């Protein structure tokens, strides 16, 4: 049944979903879009963030969003270390593209299986007072378990956009894949710039993971569902434009929400991949591309 209430609720759900997608995609937007590193394991780091939130929430009852924020620095160092391995093994020897891709593919499995070994394949949940509460505004229902992640994700996006546009390092990150040599001529060390960038990218996964487990129960292989979706968002968003990524995420969220509302939730996952394939085939530079 197509009703007005259904429609605006679908839009609202899509906006919130899209906001959350931005949190997952923003890290990949930095790695894939800015650094040309195809971190296919990014969603798995997000799941890692979910399990960190799960473990700490269960043991100490701390709010999952707070856990996510607190763990960002730890994930940051994880990302810096990861770049160092990637740099030494692939970038330095000039075989980053395909071997690097396979490397992250392998890394994805290792992480996923380690989580399966540690936590099993059962779905895990977190608890917080607001999960289960819903805000009612007229005909609009805004479940807090969606609204809070969407708000947190939007704040994180704003923070990253500010960092990228206002700091020297942020601008250097934007520049490093455009012309690495020219960046050296500006006096910046591209390896350090990339290390910091991947650190930031993985740090966003810590919070994104915590947000994910607020929205839905999580098991280790859930991350794979996000691969196509976030690649679609990043490519659609114009490869590395953070604000473009945010709007692409919102777009995908709304479209998925519509599909789920009017056709059934099982078709929703194909939206991202379908849009990705179309984008790659028709307009590889994305919809919100700067260039």
């Amino acid at each position: 049944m197509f009703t007005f209430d259904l429609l605006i609720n679908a839009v609202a759900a899509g906006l919130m979903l899209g906001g959350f997608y931005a949190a997952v995609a923003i890290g990949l937007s930095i790695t894939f879009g800015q650094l040309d590193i195809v971190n296919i394991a990014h969603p798995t780091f997000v799941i890692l963030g979910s399990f960190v939130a799960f473990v700490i929430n269960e043991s100490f009852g701390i709010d999952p969003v707070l856990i996510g924020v607190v763990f960002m620095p730890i994930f940051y160092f994880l990302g810096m270390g990861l770049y160092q391995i990637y740099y030494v093994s692939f970038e330095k020897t000039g075989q980053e593209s395909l071997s690097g891709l396979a490397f992250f593919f392998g890394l994805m499995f290792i992480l996923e299986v380690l989580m399966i070994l540690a936590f099993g394949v059962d779905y895990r949940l977190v608890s917080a007072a607001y999960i289960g509460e819903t805000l009612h505004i007229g005909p609009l229902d805004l479940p807090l378990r969606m609204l809070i992640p969407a708000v947190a994700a939007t704040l994180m996006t704003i923070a990253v956009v500010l960092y990228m546009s206002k700091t020297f390092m942020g601008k250097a990150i934007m520049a490093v894949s455009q012309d690495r040599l020219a960046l050296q001529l500006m006096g910046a060390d591209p390896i350090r710039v990339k290390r910091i960038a991947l650190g930031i990218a993985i740090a966003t996964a810590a919070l994104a993971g915590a947000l994910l487990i607020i929205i839905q129960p999580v098991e280790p292989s859930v991350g794979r569902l996000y691969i196509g979706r976030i690649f679609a968002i990043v490519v659609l968003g114009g490869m590395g434009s953070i604000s473009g990524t945010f709007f692409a995420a919102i777009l995908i969220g709304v479209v998925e929400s519509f599909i789920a509302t009017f056709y059934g939730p099982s078709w929703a996952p194909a939206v991202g991949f379908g849009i990705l394939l179309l984008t790659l085939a028709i307009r590889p530079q994305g919809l919100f591309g700067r260039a």
Partner: protein
Amino acid sequence: MRSFTIRKWKGRILASSLTITDVEAGYGSVRVLHGVSITVEDGESVVLLGSNGNGKSTLIKCITGIVRPSAGAITLDVDGVTTDLVGMAPQDIVGLGIAMVPEGRRLFPALSVEENLVLGAFRKEARPMIAENLDFVFETFPRLKERRGQLAGSMSGGEQQMVAVARALMSNPKILLVDEPSVGLAPILVSQMIAKIKELKDQRAMTVLMAEQNFNQAIKIADRGYVIVHGEIAYEGATAEDLSNNDMIKEYYLGA
């Protein structure tokens, strides 16, 4: 460690000069330079002349560390402190106050003009002076001020060359290296650009080394210069007149 010594020099730099001795360099097993020696004294404008593919750009790249010489020495003298540049990374050499306007401009095409300029001030010593330097380059190139928000990649060739020069100035350099500023520019723009570089050099008391194939434009700003043919110094002109009155020049260029 290096940055520590630089900090000591800050604010009381008196003189800076480059000495290049017997440099040999190339790409992989291609040897482009066969024992080149040149000097650039403080406050001079020195031009490297010669047609394409003879090694002018390679020499500039050796100075900034983009190409590592296989033999020879490149030393920078600043205020009596001598630094051997061979083996240093480009970002560290830039940190010493040497800026380069690369061939083909090499802007960050997907960043705005202003973002490009700000990145020029990345090195620590330049950051405190970013506001005044930005004012200065906007004054020098008013066109860039108008277009500060535009993506660098969407600018015309002449405007891009302005951005490249302005961006190099943002690092507050003592020595400015300019590599083939005329490439891809209409003749009228070449002449304007080279005049501008001369003007800037005088205003900011810089030392300039420029590689340029456009002989007649390059000698307009030259105090003296070298002609490089096939990786060797074919002629050293002690003055600009020396160069322009040399009837061998055409032979060097066209191999007649």
